[in-house]
């Protein structure tokens, strides 16, 4: 019974044609665009609208040629998507090819899918990319973190196939497919090459899970052969955890299956100061990119002009890089980093007392 379910899932996920990314996409010719690029914006809940406003202001000050299409989560379940995200919102992202998402609080209840799950499945978001860089001026125990975690986001341990064998014994199926592993490995190497990274490390536990992680590694090795200029290595997950907390400078790009990716990407966020500062971008089939802030909606400080927009701003920078607007991306990123490094305008979570608007204005001034 479970086998049939697996096969059905696999055939739904099959995407014919090319494996990958924005290389052939229309938005690769950056500089001279006569008309603005349309991007979908989901401000989200809680502090979402405030930090989305920050992004709009900074983009305006930097004269970024982006036209936002805002979409909100509705309060009724849309039967076409089985969730609070409407079909129109999803179509908007599919059409525009890029989006930026603020924090969304999933309403509790039955009869609908979680918002993140909806986005992931409907847009085929298969890789979650999180660059983790130490912020100069914001001290944590680790000063020299400069790595990127790339997590396979569709299968693995999170395939959702759990069943009870007998009372007190439950089984969970971990699915690793050649297709998904190749896909994420291709993206990882493409990202490394496009961003000037030297090394890609595949994180695994193939000594214990020989067939599943073994297949993942096999796929990574195949892709590695096509990029001889990039160093490829394989690191066992527990060794990786230890090395990350002892000497994170050892890592460059990490590519991993779903569960390890979940854990390691949050661990790396912890190394640089938490989810409030970490950008993230989800890559989908056909070169779709949905950048998002991975922190929560912080309802306790919503509407009080206290939120830190850094995560969403850095995520929007990732979105710009995906669109090959590297000049603008660099300018905005440098402005953010200098503002934080300067130390005079920091929001509460970084130990300062600036408001969201003050911080945003400081970033605009630094442009």
């Amino acid at each position, binding site marked *: 019974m479970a086998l049939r379910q697996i096969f059905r899932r696999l055939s739904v996920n099959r995407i014919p044609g090319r494996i990958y990314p924005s290389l052939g996409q229309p938005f690769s010719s950056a500089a001279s665009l006569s008309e603005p690029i349309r991007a979908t914006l989901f401000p989200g809940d809680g502090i979402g609208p405030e930090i989305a406003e920050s992004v709009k202001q900074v983009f305006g000050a930097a004269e970024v040629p982006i036209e936002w299409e805002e979409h909100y989560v509705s309060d009724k379940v849309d039967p076409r998507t089985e969730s609070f995200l409407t079909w129109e919102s999803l179509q908007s992202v599919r059409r525009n090819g890029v989006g930026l998402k603020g924090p969304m609080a999933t309403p509790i209840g039955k009869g609908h899918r979680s918002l993140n799950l909806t986005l992931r499945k409907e847009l085929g978001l298969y890789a979650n990319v999180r660059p983790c860089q130490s912020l100069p001026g914001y001290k*944590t125990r680790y000063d020299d973190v400069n790595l990127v975690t790339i997590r396979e986001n569709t299968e693995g341990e999170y395939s959702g196939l759990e069943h009870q064998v007998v009372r007190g014994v439950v089984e969970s199926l971990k699915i690793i497919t050649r297709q998904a592993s190749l896909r994420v490995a291709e993206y990882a190497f493409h990202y490394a090459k496009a961003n000037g990274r030297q090394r890609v490390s595949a994180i695994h*536990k193939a000594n214990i899970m020989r067939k599943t992680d073994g297949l993942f590694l096999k796929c990574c090795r195949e892709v590695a052969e096509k990029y001889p200029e990039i160093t490829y290595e394989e690191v*066992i*997950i*527990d*060794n990786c*955890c*230890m*090395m*990350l*907390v*002892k000497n994170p400078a050892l890592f460059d790009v990490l590519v991993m299956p779903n*569960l390890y990716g979940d*854990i390691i990407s*949050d*661990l790396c*966020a*912890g*190394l640089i*100061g*938490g*989810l409030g500062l970490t950008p993230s971008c989800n890559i989908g089939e056909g070169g779709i990119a949905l950048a998002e802030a991975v922190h929560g909606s912080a309802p306790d400080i919503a509407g009080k002009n206290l939120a830190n927009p850094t995560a969403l701003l850095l995520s929007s920078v990732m979105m710009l890089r995906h669109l090959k607007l590297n000049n603008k991306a660099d300018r905005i990123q440098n402005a953010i980093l200098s503002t934080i490094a300067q130390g005079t305008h920091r929001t509460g979570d970084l130990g300062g007392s600036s408001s969201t608007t003050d911080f945003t204005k400081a970033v605009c001034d630094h442009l």
Partner: protein
Amino acid sequence: MQLVSKPEQFDVMVTPNLYGNLVANTAAGIAGGTGVMPGGNVGQDHAVFEQGASAGNVGNEKIVEQKKANPVALLLSSAMMLRHLQFPSFADRLETAVRRVIAEGKYRTKDLGGSSTTQEVVDAVIAKLD
């Protein structure tokens, strides 16, 4: 993430197999590495004690040849074994001696930033036993 940013909020952590492996290695990395973390495996009828974190420091030929392996992890694990056998006073004496040697900082193996050999560290621990 919490472990990495604020490890002091945790006391005892109980986990399933995979997560435990990851958490133990992360915690060991934060606290000083495989060379210093003790550990034990407890079963229905028996208990086996070995160093706590599995990563690295294992099967490294170079360390064995140069006699630079850190004995602290296994010494502390044996102290855990003594406690398990209900010899708390012996366990305390051993642990105190080891702690003093590390605190003093004169005899440290390479992984702790020093240059002593295994034997030198062991001799120092014996010297500090009371």
